[in-house]
């Protein structure tokens, strides 16, 4: 049986078709009543992306965008939005599974007209995929539906193994029987049906290489873990898949990343959502996700932070950023000074700048020692940091990062021995509750 005929697929299609048709039917009717021909939807801008403290996720704010056909600055976008809606509508009707790149090519064509001075002017409906991608996002917020539910596919990126049996299409797949390979998380994770889950927790690993090592080592079997990798920046499907496991089976979710601001940010995308796709957070984010490591305190311990606090004005400055930072407990490092010397690498300016984005300029100013970096990040003055990073634990991490300008890639821990990572580091951290949220 083909995938197209699967029941869940058919249902999803007809629901999407109906949603699109009724929305645009209403649009035409409104304009017939003399109202503006315009699309109204939440603004997808940085300024309208807010961190919801209660839900602990990034959500779209209350700002609304009006895209009117008769507004010359919006006319082209209006046309592009409708064009994209009609293409998606057709693919749904024809039982197709386009990727966003397919949609880009399907809609790309020339539009020519004769101008006032008699010249024939030609342009393209869109020139770059950036433009067609943008209107796909607009349609998602306009129709309040995720692209996955419009049967738009994207490249598979995330992988999963573990004691987990699922139904995809009309096939039942046992994810504990994948050999050395793994199940590629399909772009439409909502079409997956969980049949049986036998696991203690979910471990999400940023790096594919680490995932493979843990997989071959038998880590997930030994610890009853659903092992997931996002292979770098997580795509939507991986996030949605993790979210479903957390939500539907109440499994704790731990995230293992590099010990650098990029790793920290990947964790936060799982947890609170991404800034560019904040409208999806409600469906994609996992607010209970915990950052298991690698932390700077795993590398350096907490003594080093106490030294920083003793410096003039640092304590006051950090207390102002986040209350209680000077009263945090202490812990020993997982690495010896010798190992530290071997594994730790120097942070680049790029890393430092990213860190300023996470916790703000004031933390960097208080903790940075390097005069070179200090002068170079001056232009970021005024950056206040993301609210979900302004907790005592995270500020301490980044303070140590600024102070030492050091980072560590997770492969380095495996350098100490895969056994150490799999049998000691991860289990010990989970057991002792040594994570950051």
């Amino acid at each position, binding site marked *: 049986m083909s995938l197209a005929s699967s029941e869940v697929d058919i249902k999803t299609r007809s629901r999407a078709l109906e949603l699109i048709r009724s929305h645009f039917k209403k649009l035409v009717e409104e304009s017939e009543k003399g109202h503006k021909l315009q699309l109204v939807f939440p603004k997808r801008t940085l300024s309208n992306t807010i961190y919801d403290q209660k839900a602990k996720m990034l959500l779209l704010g209350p700002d609304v965008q009006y895209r009117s*056909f*008769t507004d010359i600055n919006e006319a082209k976008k209006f046309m592009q939005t409708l064009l994209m*809606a*009609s293409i998606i509508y057709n693919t749904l009707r024809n039982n197709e599974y386009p990727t966003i790149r397919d949609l880009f090519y399907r809609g790309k*064509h020339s*539009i020519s*007209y004769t101008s006032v001075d008699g010249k024939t002017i030609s342009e393209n409906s869109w020139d770059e995929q950036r433009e067609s991608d943008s209107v796909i996002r607009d349609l998602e917020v306009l129709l309040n539906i995720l692209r996955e539910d419009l049967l738009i596919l994207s490249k598979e990126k995330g992988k999963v193994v573990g004691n987990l049996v699922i139904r995809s299409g009309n096939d039942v797949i046992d994810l504990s029987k994948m050999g050395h390979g793994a199940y590629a998380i399909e772009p439409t994770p909502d079409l997956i049906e969980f049949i049986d889950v036998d696991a203690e927790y979910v471990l999400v690993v940023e790096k594919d290489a680490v995932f493979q090592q843990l997989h071959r080592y038998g880590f997930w079997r030994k610890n009853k873990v659903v092992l997931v990798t996002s292979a770098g920046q997580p795509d939507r499907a991986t996030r949605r898949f993790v979210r479903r496991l957390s939500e539907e089976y109440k499994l704790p979710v731990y995230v293992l990343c590099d010990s650098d601001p990029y790793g920290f940010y990947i964790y936060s995308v799982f947890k609170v959502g991404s800034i560019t796709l904040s409208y999806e957070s409600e469906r994609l984010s996992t607010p209970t996700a915990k950052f298991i490591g690698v932390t700077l305190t795993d590398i350096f311990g907490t003594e080093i932070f106490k030294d920083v606090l003793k410096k003039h004005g640092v304590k006051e400055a950090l207390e102002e950023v986040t209350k209680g930072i000077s009263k945090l407990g202490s812990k020993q490092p997982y690495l010896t000074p010798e190992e530290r010397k071997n594994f730790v690498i120097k942070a680049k300016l790029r890393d430092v700048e990213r860190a300023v984005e996470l916790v703000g300029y004031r933390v960097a100013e208080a903790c940075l020692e390097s005069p070179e970096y200090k002068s170079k990040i001056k232009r970021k003055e005024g950056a206040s940091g993301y609210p979900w990073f302004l907790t005592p634990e995270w500020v301490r991490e980044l303070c140590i990062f600024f102070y030492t300008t050091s980072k560590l890639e997770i492969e380095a821990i495996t350098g100490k021995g895969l056994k150490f990572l799999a049998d000691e580091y991860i289990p010990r951290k989970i057991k002792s509750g040594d994570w950051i949220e």
Partner: protein
Amino acid sequence: MSTIGEKYTSISPAEFFYKYREVAGFANPVKAFYQTIKELIDNALDATDMHGVLPDVKISIERADEVQEFYKITVEDNGIGLPPDVVPYAFGRVLFSSKYSMKQSRGMYGLGVKMVVLYAQMTTGRPIEVTTSRENYRMIYYFKLRIDINKNEPVIIERGAWRKTRDWHGTIVSVTIEGDWNRAKQRILEYLHRTSIITPYANITLITPENEIVHYPRVTTVLPRPPRETKPHPHGIDLEMLKMLLNNNGDKTLEEILVSSFQSIGSSTAKVLLSTAGIDPSKKPRELAEEEIQKLFNTIKNYDKYRPPLSSALSPLGREVIEAGLKRIFEPEFLYAVSRSPRSYEGHPFIVEAALSYGGKTPMSPQDQPVVLRYANRVPLIYDESTDVITQVVKEDINWDHYMTSFPAQLAILVHICSTKIPFRGVGKESIADIPEIRREIRLAIMEAARELKHYLARKAREKEALRRVETIAKYIPEVARSLLIILEDESNEYAKKTLTHKLVTLVSKRSGVPVNVVDSIVKSVEIGA
């Protein structure tokens, strides 16, 4: 023509002709041809529009000899005609007009046509033929005559008169000259073209020796107000004129002469002038000594309490005529004419008129200035453009950037100066001298028209901008309609497509203020490619 009863002084025509041949424009067969046509047409028009008659002027030029370059030129007008007793003198005697009263006219008081007769006689030896009648005459008169050069007398070779069978008035003049038609043709056509620009009320037809017909049909029946004869203003007098006045009016008192010869001198002003000059008012006019005349002349010239010169002697074309004329020839997209109020210089009244013609069939200008069409007393000035004060104003006094204009452009400026005395530069009468009062008026007139042009161009730019804005929306209507119809699953319904497209067109038209048909034409031009 009000030539009856006027006084003339004879001078030797041969002497006059040889002396003034070049000055009068008869230097060679090309110039002479041009000048002949010009004199005859100017006379024809003076006999019509200056007297309130809508001109019908026919000019025919025929080859009159198979071997020699002889051409018979016939000009017919429907003007006021000439009394038969004046005809021989008007055409057959070189005369010097002694009239003091003055008014605007094209020609030099009919002097030019005698030059034509003399030139014809010198080159082909053929006489001039004149047929004429006035409005209330029952007869039409015919003359064939030549000038006895030695006696300066007309010699009537043939004359005739017959009863009018229809209500005709006007004059037909035929003259045969030697000329270089091939080289004069362009000049003559240009002259006719320029003339026609400011005479939209005239029907002008020219038949060339090649039997080509050039026709400028009448497009308006509005005629400029004819000029009225006025006495000269005292500031415009010269010493010779004053002497002649004193000589010719021996029977009058000095005061009477002043009062009757000039405008704005009454008996009290006359008394003041005479006492200021220290002249005994009871002296006989002819008894004044040379230095007394000089003194009186200076006093008249320097007195500053006269009223400004009367402008009734002038006949400006008026805005309506100028605009109708430019419209007839150039069919411009923008047209604006200005007719300034009368001003005066050195005792001579003058009026400056200007017009701008933009776009349409207006000729393309040179790189650095607009096309300049100059006129003095309704006569087109074609040569010596660079030295003319009008050209100088256009090039030096007007900042065209300020009026949103850069060159080349389809822009022509017409300037007409009318005056009882046009201050020509040099003897060619093709270029007007730089008189500050006139220069100022030309500048103001052009600026006024240019301001209107600027407004027009700004409005046009705004409208174009509005269209551009509509374009940026309208071009997407077919795509939007198509997309909506797909979603509404109505894409193969032609009627639905038409209705929806029309709705969108109406909506865009309403929002932008641009007419439905304009929006529709943009939409119709749209092609959606692959």
